[in-house]
């Protein structure tokens, strides 16, 4: 059991846990967190496999990929959280309004009014 195995084992467990959370949790905020845990697992897998040739310097390509992945993850998370806020606000404003019976092509819906 090398360090690589240990960490990639953890990575896969994290990914699986995240998938379970994503499927079974209902709250959207928790779903977003679950997605981030899957991302953490995927990143950990990449980095632990890059660590395999210890001694020599680790493979920089997975490191670059994970850096890219982190940027993507924070962007998507920020976007998702902003959407959650907006939905919460609109549902909170008009609690009797059922989601789904609005027509986007209609023009009269002015959302910004008080």
């Amino acid at each position, binding site marked *: 059991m090398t360090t690589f195995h240990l960490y990639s084992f953890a990575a896969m*467990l994290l990914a699986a846990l995240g998938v379970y959370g994503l499927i079974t949790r209902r709250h959207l905020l928790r779903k977003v967190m679950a997605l981030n845990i899957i991302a953490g697992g995927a990143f950990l897998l990449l980095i632990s496999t890059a660590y395999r040739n210890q001694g020599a310097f680790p493979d920089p390509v997975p490191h670059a990929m994970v850096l890219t992945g982190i940027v993507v993850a924070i962007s998507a998370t920020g976007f998702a959280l902003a959407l959650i806020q907006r939905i919460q606000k609109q549902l909170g404003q008009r609690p009797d309004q059922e989601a789904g019976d609005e027509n986007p092509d209609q023009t009269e819906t002015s959302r910004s009014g008080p």
Partner: protein
Amino acid sequence: MSLAPIFDILLITALLLVSWRLLGNSDLFQAAVLFISFGLFLSLAWVRLQAPDIALAEAAVGAGLTGALLFATLKIVEPKQGRSKNGAQPKSCRLDRAAECPGRMHYILASIFVLGLAGLLLTAVFSLPDTANGLAGLTSGFLAQSGVEHPVTAVLLNFRLYDTWLELGVLLLALLGVLGTRDRLGPQNVTAAQPPNPVLSWLVRGLAPFMLLATVYLLWLGDHAPGGAFQAGVVLAATLVLLWLAGLGSVVRMPRHAWLFSLVAGFSAMLVLALCTTLAPDAVALAYPQSWAKALILLLESVATISIGVILASLTVLVLAGEGEANGAGAAETDGKNGM
């Protein structure tokens, strides 16, 4: 015999424990706190696995921005929860009313699926060869020609520049998406929610110069050591968000044009490089001209740092400010003026 395995096992236990609890039965505030701790433990893992670049990025994102984003959303989604004495189970989720309450079958199916997935993943991982045969050799072989001395920077800004360009596009898109759901175009005139805390503003006044210094330092570091545009950009973003929280000038006070320009600067710098290299008769697409590589990479990185900083800061400020600012009698008119 080193103590490394003990450290590893402790770290992995912590990671799994945190994520288990985070997804399991904890109230949302606890989940947010656990999520930040998760980022912290992950960055310890990055350091342990000799990935200091990632550790820097994770420290900046996980400890700083994500926490701020989550707490802000939590306040709006569960306004009372953030204050409650003892975190009770959150009541029904209004955000997901369409979904039925998952029954037992749902959990069983999910468990079967996830167990299968985990089994597959673990078999796959344990069948991997013990030594890496990746591109490490090639990268170090061509490092001398790349214009920088740090291999990760070389990959990001030379060998795989196209990916980095697109990644800046992703960042830009996330912000555009958020702006699309708002009534205004930018974070301008978004004011701090309440009179700034004097202690905080005093603290930030002292801290901000150091953080700006850290930004420049990280940017400069990327040339030959872990660091670079992204890490520097996140620190810049955190600085800008802190400045906003303290009621000091930040992205919200930037003139619209300067703000727009800094949003697109990184993406368009790479676009200009692509444009020039495809138009020039004897140039290779997205390749730096000989002997200019070092200077151009530094330039691109500086511009990208500003873009990343401003984009992430605007995103965070918009989420932190919530919808409150656009919610008033004047919003409709401002929409007309500002949105066009």
